[in-house]
């Protein structure tokens, strides 16, 4: 392998990129656009669940119970309703996501020391929001129930009892539970995978399709040199993307970056080399741009969004799917990024993931070089 020939191919490819400013522009604009959308528009945080109340009891007790909901920052009170039909209308028109129904004998039962049922209806079509809303409702109800019991004890004992347990949850790494803090580092991982394969998946197929491959074959350049030369300019674009993403995350979205920045870029470079080589591999295998683009999208786009743990928890998936996620390199890169960003941990903790990424990239480079044949057939 001669550095001079690698360099020549790299220069040619680099000119190619510069001559097509629109593709280059989109290669940079897509990450920026995604960051803006994710950073500003998207949140999985559930608060202010719109709630309607059907209070058939209309007593001080029931009103106090309802006020527990209204006072919680998780619900916003959307008014009273009078029957199930109105609840249905409110939920169908998405005016409310949840409805609380209090039966007529609510206060009477509590006064008699019996359990009082209440009903919570949620719109289950968005199951995530519904689950979270139900959890909040349970918490409000239990607080109220405990207050009722405590009042009973006070009446008997004559003094306020100590509550038995003082539960102190402490949230590490992301104390305000801001979804932006985990989405931005995750997004960098997902984006790099997509962009990398997008950038290179057409490069070799294009030469075949246009017929310029024959010219390349007639030159003394060797296969591995050609692949390496094609890789380098796109690596530069990918690193530029990473820099932009890190800077935007830090200064626009104020996501804390607690770990080492050099480590971040080192791992990102390794990961990019793997992703870009995967693109080249796809390109050499298909020799056809339409097919290469479909295959690259198939291999990178949806798997890295859905199977990397980016939004969907891997531990909640069925076991066979969990096995498959081990094959998704974005999964490891994502762990590394979240570790560096939020936990501030270094190589001593992330060694396993980093090693796997090195392995992945090494394998991809070797595969891309070996699969490429300087032959016409």
């Amino acid at each position, binding site marked *: 392998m001669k550095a001079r020939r690698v360099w020549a191919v790299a220069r040619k490819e680099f000119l190619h990129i510069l001559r*097509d400013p*629109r*593709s280059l522009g989109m290669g940079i*604009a*897509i990450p920026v*656009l*995604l960051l803006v*959308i994710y950073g500003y*528009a998207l*949140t999985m*945080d559930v608060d202010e669940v719109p709630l309607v109340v059907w209070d058939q009891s209309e007593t001080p007790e029931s009103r106090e*119970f309802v006020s527990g909901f209204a006072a919680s920052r998780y619900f916003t009170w959307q008014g009273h309703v009078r029957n199930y039909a109105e609840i249905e209308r409110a939920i169908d028109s*998405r005016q409310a996501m949840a409805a609380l129904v209090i039966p007529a004998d609510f206060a009477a039962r509590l006064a008699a*020391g019996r*359990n*009082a*049922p*209440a009903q919570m209806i*949620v719109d*289950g*079509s*968005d*199951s995530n929001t*519904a*689950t979270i809303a*139900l*959890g909040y409702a349970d918490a409000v109800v*239990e607080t109220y*129930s*405990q207050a009722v*019991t405590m009042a009973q004890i006070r009446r*008997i*004992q004559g003094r306020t*009892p*100590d*509550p*038995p*347990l*003082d539960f102190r949850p*402490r*949230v*590490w*790494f992301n104390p305000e*539970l801001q*979804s932006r803090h*985990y989405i931005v580092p995750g997004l960098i991982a997902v984006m790099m995978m997509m962009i990398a394969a997008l950038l290179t998946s057409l490069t070799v197929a294009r030469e075949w399709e*246009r017929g310029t491959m024959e010219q390349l074959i007639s030159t003394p350049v060797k296969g591995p040199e050609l692949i390496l030369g094609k890789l380098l300019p796109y690596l530069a674009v990918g690193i530029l993307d990473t820099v932009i993403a890190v800077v935007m995350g830090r200064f626009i979205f104020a996501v804390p970056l607690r770990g080492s920045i050099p480590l971040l870029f080192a791992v990102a470079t390794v990961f990019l080399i793997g992703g870009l080589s995967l693109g080249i591999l796809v390109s050499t295998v298909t020799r056809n*741009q*339409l*097919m290469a683009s*479909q295959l690259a999208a198939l291999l990178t*786009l949806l798997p890295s969004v*859905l199977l990397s743990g980016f*939004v*969907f928890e891997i*531990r909640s*998936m*069925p076991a066979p799917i969990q096995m498959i*996620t081990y094959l998704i390199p974005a999964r490891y890169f994502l762990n590394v990024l979240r570790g560096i960003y939020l*936990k501030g941990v270094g190589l001593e903790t992330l060694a396993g993931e980093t090693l796997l990424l090195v392995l992945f990239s090494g394998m991809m480079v070797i595969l891309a070089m070996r699969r490429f044949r300087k032959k016409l057939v």
Partner: protein
Amino acid sequence: MRERLWHMLVKEFIQALRNPRMRALIFVTPVIQLFLFGYAVTTDVQNIALAVYDQDHSVASRELTSRFVRSGYFDLVESVAEPGRVQELLDRGEARAVLQFHRGFQETLQAGRTAELQLLLDGTISNTAGIVLNYSSRIVNQYSQELLDQRMHRLLGTPPRTAKVELAARAWFNEALESRNFFVPGVIAMIVTLTSLMLTSMAVVREKEIGTMEQILVTPIRPVELILGKTIPFALISYADVIGITIIGVLWFAVPVRGNLLLLLFATGLFLLTTLGLGLLISTVSQTQQQAMMGAFFLYLPALLLSGFIFPIANMPEVFQWLTLLNPLRYFLEIIRGIFLKGIGASILWPQMAALSILGVATLGLASRRFRKTLE
């Protein structure tokens, strides 16, 4: 006209389906994707890795720990012996939550005073952390309530008649709160969008790039016929994909279909108008397939994110909520989820369908105007 269009269609079909690998890509991969993602997409939180750092070693601490495990949400991964290990577990992500009992936990409880109990939580993934927080406060609250009842029992000498509020929860449209029911229809919409958008956007540019466009231009074919010839095959292919993966979604994933499937097919047609129109539009502004592919991604990713597929539209800032009104995928998702889960019909879904028709006519109209200009 009909004859020329026919030839064009035959040519396009041959071109698209000639290559066996391409055939596999078009027809087999959507199915694989559905299987994979149908199982993967779940926001249900379970099997949370829990570690316990129990300095009390008492009946009470063990009882509460076992309640966490029995709740079904937590997997006990480790009983921690020394404090340094807690940090390590959370740093490595081997445990998501650590339950911590201080020495004297049981003693304090028995004395009728307030015992402190700590839960350390990995907040990295804030959504999960919030749910875990909910689960654990519920478990702790329940235990606390029982302790209070016992205390009452001791005071009164008889079992207490506790007055509690019992919340009966009911989730409409999705009783078991299966997130799979919510996401599988979305996955169907996503796969179809990707295939139809990318196939159309690259197909026309390909002729430009290879130089065969000039050959087509010297034939007597008219612009309308060329446009139809380029879009109809992909519309049919996308239709086949939709039908195939819908059948699998229903039969395999047992996603309920409460509405009318014919209506779904009709709405799919409206939706395909917009994706084909957008694909055509991309191909008129692109010179190379690379540009077309980038362009397709440039449209697809925001459309995916701003559709309500994963992230609820109601939670977005107002500006972005307005933007989603231009997103055909948003309407298609509402329709497809409405038909699958809510069983609602055209009487409720007509605004979404109208929006899709308008967007479809607009994009297709714009695309064919630009397309003709490039041809002439």
